[in-house]
């Protein structure tokens, strides 16, 4: 296609409300640039124009890391603490992923935190002995199905009866809170920390079990090769066929970044964080498990019709309706998938805490989930965002949580700090929305 400077479009832009540079800013640099240099320049213009992408969140992570590193006198970035941080962040990341499914539609799910609590309760109760003593995998599947069905019910109420999702899921929050209290009964807690009962132990090991260090490196090597092979064959293949493709330098850079991040994570996790006698090292199993879920959802949202329709509905519901898309079906499924993902974070929570109790603060967790999504760069107004953004956002939340805890800061200050970060993230979202053209159907 013509990549020449366009006379017509350029002059005509002046007649309209949009600033002249808008077209250049809003177009992602990777589709316009022919070389890495052009890409960097286009990217710079975009950042200057307010469309900053992942930059603020990476920037925030660096500042948080440096600040806590100084404040805790080197404790924060120690391998042992970093592994803890990864583990804590997993729950926030997966809750963020859950929220992104509905945020992309311009909806919200306030019940996700208590879906997490109920899911943890279901899975925990099902592996009790004496008790049901179900196999661990069946307990997980049951918990996920319950969560998915719950989400689907909210979805049906929202899409068929046209109730606002805020109210439906607020009611859902209360209902699931109550359900959790009923489930856990008088004991008020359930444990999966047994080392003798296999089904409990497997659940426990999801977070606390480690991949042997050598296997971690092998796994990373395989993963890197797969990623590199896939990215190169796709990007270079498209380039060869004359389709829009990122500059070759960018493809290489992406792969290098992936490999570097992988090496950093594996290296940190493989440091012995036990003692000389009891060696404790390796990547926690939860890391690759969350990666698999992430990959599944990325494929679903970026590479299938369903995903395309989620974005279309979030961008312009009327256009989607006229294109023959069933809005109700897509919305219901999105809520169901948000439920499943929240349920999955419940499994991680159960494993992380070695059990669950009536003390789970689902209201706070769901806000952390929304915060993770929004901090990562997902828009509250629908249509804009990527599931992978929950990873960075979750890390930010996890880092604040972890750092303040490490420093012995009282919980009230943790809440205030997290709230401030959330406000900052929404501010960035709103400002970038105002600065660019995204999301507005009225502007012609």
């Amino acid at each position, binding site marked *: 296609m013509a990549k020449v400077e366009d006379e*017509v*479009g350029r002059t005509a832009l002046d007649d309209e409300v949009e600033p002249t540079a808008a*077209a250049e800013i809003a177009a992602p640099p990777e589709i*316009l640039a022919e070389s890495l240099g052009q890409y960097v320049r286009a990217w710079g213009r975009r950042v200057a124009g307010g469309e900053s992408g992942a930059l603020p969140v990476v920037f925030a992570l660096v500042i948080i890391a440096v600040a806590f590193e100084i404040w805790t006198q080197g404790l924060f970035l120690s391998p042992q603490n970093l592994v803890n941080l990864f583990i804590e962040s997993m729950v926030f990341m997966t809750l963020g992923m859950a929220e992104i499914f509905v945020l992309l539609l311009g909806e919200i799910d306030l019940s996700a935190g208590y879906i997490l609590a109920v899911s943890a309760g279901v899975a925990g109760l099902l592996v009790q002995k004496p008790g049901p003593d179900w196999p661990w995998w069946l307990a997980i599947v049951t918990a996920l199905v319950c969560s998915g069905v719950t989400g689907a019910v909210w979805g049906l109420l929202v899409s068929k009866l046209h109730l606002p999702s805020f109210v439906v899921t607020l009611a859902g929050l209360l209902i699931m809170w109550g359900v959790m209290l009923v489930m856990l009964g008088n004991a008020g807690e359930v444990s999966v920390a047994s080392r003798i009962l296999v089904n409990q132990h497997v659940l426990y090991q999801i977070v606390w079990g480690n991949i042997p260090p050598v296997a971690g490196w092998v796994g990373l090597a395989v993963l890197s090769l797969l990623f590199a092979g896939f990215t190169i064959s796709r990007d270079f293949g498209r380039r060869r066929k004359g*389709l829009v493709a990122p500059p070759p330098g960018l493809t290489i850079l992406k792969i290098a970044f992936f490999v570097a991040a992988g090496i950093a994570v594996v290296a940190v996790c493989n440091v012995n964080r036990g003692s000389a006698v009891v060696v404790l090292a390796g990547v926690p199993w939860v890391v690759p498990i969350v990666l698999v879920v992430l990959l599944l959802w990325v494929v679903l949202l970026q590479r*299938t019709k369903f995903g395309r329709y989620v*974005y279309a509905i979030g*961008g312009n519901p009327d256009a989607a309706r006229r294109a023959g898309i069933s809005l109700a079906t897509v919305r219901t499924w999105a809520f169901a998938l948000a439920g499943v993902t929240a349920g999955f974070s419940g499994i991680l929570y159960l494993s992380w805490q070695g059990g669950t109790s009536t003390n789970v603060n689902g209201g706070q967790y769901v806000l952390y989930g929304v915060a993770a999504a929004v901090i990562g760069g997902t828009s509250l107004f629908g249509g804009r965002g990527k599931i992978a953004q929950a990873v960075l956002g979750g890390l930010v939340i996890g880092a604040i949580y972890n750092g303040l805890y490490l420093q012995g800061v009282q919980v009230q200050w943790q809440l205030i700090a997290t709230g401030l970060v959330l406000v900052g993230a929404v501010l960035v979202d709103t400002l970038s929305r105002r600065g660019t053209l995204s999301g507005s159907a009225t502007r012609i």
Partner: protein
Amino acid sequence: MSSAPGSESPTPGAPGSALVSPGTQPLLQLRGVDKHFGAVQALYHVDLDLPAAQVTALCGDNGAGKSVLTRCIAGIHQPDRGEILWSGKQVHLRGPRDAADLGIEVVYQDLALADNLDIVQNMFLGRERVHRGLLNEDSMERAAAETLRNLKVTTVRSIRQPVASLSGGQRQAVAVAKAVMWNSKLVLLDEPTAALGVVQTRMVLDLVRTLRDHGLGVMLVSHNLNDVFQVADRIAVLHLGRKVAEGPAADFDLQSVVEYMTTGSAHR
């Protein structure tokens, strides 16, 4: 006044379509179409021919019934009486799908584009090509690029840029390209230049001519008479739900069209 008694049930190809140059079967014919909503009569006995490879402009003041007529052809409204003939054969359009299946596409004034999706994604919205369950982006991108090339839409920098980053004329072009991608034979354009500046308007009118040169029938709904006289081969005027004039553009001038639009008749 239209609705001459003889035009109630024309046999295909018969002189019922005398206004079209002989030998061409109009792509779409409306015969005596009535439409009312409750007590409001929106269309009275409207006859209209839309031939292939010609631009027919449908003019009329606000409330003249242009939108209702467009929606009847698009299958959104069903006429209360009268018939719609497609290539001479009577058809019943029960919904937009029926119209689309025949090859009738409508570009509405609001364009129905999702700003957050790119050009290719918008052009294939709802009709994505899928390969083993996954979207076949390569094939869709190639097809979209070819369609845009055929329509001589060369001003977009990349077909992977989000529609939000396009100018008004480019958005209109994408909406039109989206409409003609599907082997459509008749394209209805609803006020395509309403929100555009001078240069953008010229670009869209060029696009309309390209469509005609490709053999498509075009119905241009507009009350911008400058545009109408620039591209229309034929002009039809609605006044308060009745068709008051229809004929080759050469038979009209600016003043007569204005008179038809405002008073329903003209003194020539």
